[in-house]
């Protein structure tokens, strides 16, 4: 495995999440390893009018965890982000005696695909029913897409910068890429990165439904998200947040932090093909993976695992599989274990890259890959897809996490074992 010694090494020292599988990292990881689905039939009255009546809502409601007044000043996406960030921050050891981050060297890059859509729409309902004086004065800070990032920045005292990349379902990975850049450019020593999404609401669900993007397997919710299975009929909308603490290796080692993995590099490309459909040639996705390898100083043969974007849509899953084979070459693809944790979590849109990067980091850390469930009748995509938990080799290993978004955004992040 080659190493580019000219680049600052960036390491992952903290993880946090609240997901459809569990309210923290441990419960989420254990659920993923045991093939547990977070998809359920929606109990909201509004779901009855929709063609798709299933989604992957978070396992633990954020208002059960957060301070009541703090929670009511945040959109649900901000609540979820804060829960995940607080866990990651504590997990990294910050807040312990002697473990401090200089505020002016501390940044946040926290993404969202859609922003505070529930706040926006509920306040529009209030406006129509009761008039402008009943609209919340907190509506703007709650609905703005950078609200979750800003509230995390306020909570941990980040003064280097607070960013919110927006690139639909690639947003979470773009935030991680930005965090790596901020450290390598010398603009920060510690960056809290990740993504959040809370769009389980009738309007986004109706709109995704009109795109024919959602699975309507309402009678078998836990089987609805089935990447690469011939019976797949669209993605399952998920909600949640995941956060990683990135840190320069120098900073982490000076405070004796536990290192999960190295965030080795990223590749970002654009398809320039269609606003919603993936480029069937997969060339943009291929270039993203190749760029991530090059930037990380890795060879295709070093990659032993990919957590794929694979959302369970008819076109996307196939295009990505082809892109993986093109990016790594047929030889390297032989020793590769691919999985899609979306088969259990559903698709968290702007949080997907963050949650799946967390799963990728934990796969390297524990050297075991979570399964892809529901792969009963697989497409022949020429890849080794894990249908049960699979061990990874010992030694120096590396993995990729892919995320692609409407708009033709492709982001691959490369991680290597610590």
């Amino acid at each position, binding site marked *: 495995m080659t190493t580019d010694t000219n680049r600052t090494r960036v390491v992952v020292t903290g993880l946090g999440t609240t997901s459809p599988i569990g309210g923290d990292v441990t419960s989420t990881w254990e659920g993923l390893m045991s093939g547990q689905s977070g998809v359920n039939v929606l109990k909201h009255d509004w779901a009855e009018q929709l063609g798709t009546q299933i989604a992957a809502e978070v396992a633990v409601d954020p208002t059960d965890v957060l*301070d*009541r*007044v703090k929670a*009511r000043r945040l959109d649900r996406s901000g609540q979820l982000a804060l829960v995940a960030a607080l866990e990651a921050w504590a997990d990294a050891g910050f807040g312990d005696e002697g473990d401090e981050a200089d505020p002016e060297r501390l940044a946040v890059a926290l993404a969202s695909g859609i922003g505070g859509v529930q706040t926006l729409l509920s306040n529009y309902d209030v406006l129509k029913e009761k008039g402008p*004086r*009943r609209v*919340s*004065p*907190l509506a703007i*800070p709650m609905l703005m897409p950078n609200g979750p990032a800003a509230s995390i920045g306020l909570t941990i005292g980040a003064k280097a910068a607070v960013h919110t990349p927006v690139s639909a379902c690639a947003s979470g990975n773009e935030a991680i890429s930005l965090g790596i850049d901020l450290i390598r450019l010398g603009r920060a020593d510690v960056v809290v990165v990740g993504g959040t999404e809370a769009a389980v609401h009738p309007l986004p669900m109706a709109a995704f439904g009109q795109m024919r993007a959602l699975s309507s397997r309402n009678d078998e919710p836990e089987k609805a998200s089935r990447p690469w299975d011939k019976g797949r009929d669209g993605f399952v909308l998920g909600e949640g947040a995941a956060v990683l603490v990135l840190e320069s290796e120098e900073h982490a080692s000076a405070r004796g932090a536990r290192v999960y993995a190295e965030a080795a590099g990223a590749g970002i490309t654009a398809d320039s093909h269609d606003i919603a459909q993936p480029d069937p040639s997969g060339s943009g996705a291929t270039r993203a993976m190749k760029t991530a390898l090059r930037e990380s100083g890795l060879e295709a043969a070093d990659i032993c695992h990919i957590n794929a974007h694979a959302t369970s849509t008819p076109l996307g899953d196939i295009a990505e599989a082809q892109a993986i084979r093109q990016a790594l070459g047929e030889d390297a693809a032989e020793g590769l274990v691919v999985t899609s944790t979306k088969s259990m979590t559903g698709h968290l849109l702007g949080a997907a890259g963050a949650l799946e990067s967390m799963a990728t980091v934990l796969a390297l850390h524990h050297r075991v890959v979570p399964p892809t469930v529901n792969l009963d009748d697989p497409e022949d995509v020429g890849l080794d897809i894990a249908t049960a938990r699979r061990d990874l080799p010992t030694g120096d290993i590396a993995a990729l996490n892919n995320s692609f978004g409407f708009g033709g955004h492709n982001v691959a992040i490369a991680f290597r074992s610590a």
Partner: protein
Amino acid sequence: MATKTDILTDLAAIVDEIAGVPADDVQLDKEFVGDLDVDSLSMVEIVVAAEEKFGVRIPDDQVKNLKTVGDAVDYIESAQS
């Protein structure tokens, strides 16, 4: 007609709900900003919630005169009569 005590009880519940100030601390002589640490956006929320609860209108140019909880209780009482 609601008494001053009734108005105070209901207003204290609103301040507790919106700003997280324990209702027992919401006393007539307390200033919203200086004593109860209510910020400007929360004050707008409290005014709107009070208008709804008490069926009164509290114009923006009156809000700046409502420094203490007692000022607000007096205003609501007179606006209701």
